[in-house]
């Protein structure tokens, strides 16, 4: 592979993951290159979320390694800036408003956090009108949208690691996500996501990765 190509590639090599005393999967080899999207599928309990967490660098693999640009993700200092991880949990604080929650996350991750940018991002996900509502008053779908507004703040190509991004969203919401994904991939970003339902017609082309194959 040309040296340039590895620079913006997530590479999982011979990855194994343990939960308690069981091995969830072994020998996983997965690559996510710039401009590509990968749909991680598998039955419940196969370790999809665990794999995403390993890819993000939150967890330590039982064996194998995860690297970004050739460097182990747990050690790569550049990784934090080019990685966006949105897990099952929304990371929104119940007592803060939508705008405040988003602002905190944007500040934390070094993204634009001025009011104008945040409002524009919320507008894209259809949550601008509820920007001053406390998160605890929102429905599940609305909270998901508010979290996904983070993606609308992104400008540079990055690796998006998304755990069930379509969860709880209505048809409009799914549309919004797909549009964000299309734009992201067009500017050279990459995506690794899970979804228990197959991505619909509006979603960008995604390579399928079936985790069921790697159960021990």
């Amino acid at each position, binding site marked *: 592979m040309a040296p340039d190509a590895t620079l913006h590639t997530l590479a999982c090599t011979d990855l194994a993951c343990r939960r308690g005393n069981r*091995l969830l999967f072994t020998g996983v080899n997965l690559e996510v290159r710039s401009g590509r999207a990968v749909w991680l599928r598998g039955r419940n309990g196969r370790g999809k979320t665990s794999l995403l967490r390993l890819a993000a660098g939150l967890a330590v693999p*039982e064996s194998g390694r995860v690297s970004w640009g050739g460097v182990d993700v747990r050690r790569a200092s550049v990784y934090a800036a080019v990685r966006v991880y949105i897990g099952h949990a929304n990371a929104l604080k119940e007592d803060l408003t939508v705008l405040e929650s988003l602002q905190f996350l944007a500040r934390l991750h070094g993204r634009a956090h001025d009011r104008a940018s945040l409002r524009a991002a919320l507008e894209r996900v259809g949550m601008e009108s509820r920007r001053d509502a406390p998160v605890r008053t929102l429905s599940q779908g609305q909270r998901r949208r508010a979290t996904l507004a983070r993606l609308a703040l992104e400008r540079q190509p990055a690796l998006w690691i998304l755990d069930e991004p379509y969860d709880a969203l209505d048809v409009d919401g799914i549309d919004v996500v797909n549009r964000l994904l299309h734009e992201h991939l067009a500017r050279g970003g990459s995506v690794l996501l899970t979804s228990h339902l197959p991505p619909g017609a509006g979603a960008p082309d995604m390579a399928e990765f079936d985790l069921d194959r790697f159960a*021990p």
Partner: protein
Amino acid sequence: MNTLRWSTFAAPSRFYALVSAVNPWLWGLAIVLALAALYIGFFVAPVDATQGNSYRIIFIHVPAAWLSMVLYLAMAFWAAMGWMLNARMASMLARAIAPTGALFTFLALWTGSFWGKPTWGTWWVWDARLTSELILLFLYLGYIALVSSIDDVVRGDKAGAVLALVGAVNVPIIYFSVVWWNTLHQGATISATAAPKMAQTMLLAMLLMTLSFWAYAFAVVFTRAQALAVERERHTDWARSLAGKELQ
């Protein structure tokens, strides 16, 4: 069959074999040395001028106190090794040391109490050493409580390592502060070093008792570590064949 890579449990199985070979000797040594120490301490050493016969407890109290402190450091050391080198057996060793360390701490407190009673008339005295031993007991209990509360053994091992290290770093500070506190309040002192002239025989008894405790500690910690190894590796071939042999 969910077996892990062979190399990750080669160490525990070798450890198991090593301990099985060595332990009988350790037990034997512990018993012999203990008997010798008890004989010398109770029958051979002379009566103390100031404290009469009650001071004889010193040669159980002091070795127990020494061991309680050394074992804590050993526990912190092995926990740290297990964490940093990803060595499972080291982490198991740390877990195995904790109950024995706690036991010796309790023994030191108990014998200290026995010593205090005839000397000061009370069953407990808040002197610097006894208070430090009490705090050490709390540190041991804290470690045991933490690692038992965490279901995931790997997380338990690592969290225990952090706790043990934080404790180890704090032990000198705690001891210093307790000594400071004690001198300010001019409490009673049970000090081994204050005993005017330690009879040679007493020192010998204390030394023998210390060695005996050491041997005992090794033996019992190793046995516990063996049990931990078999339990954690119960999915592996060597552990199963072990169980198979026992059932025959």
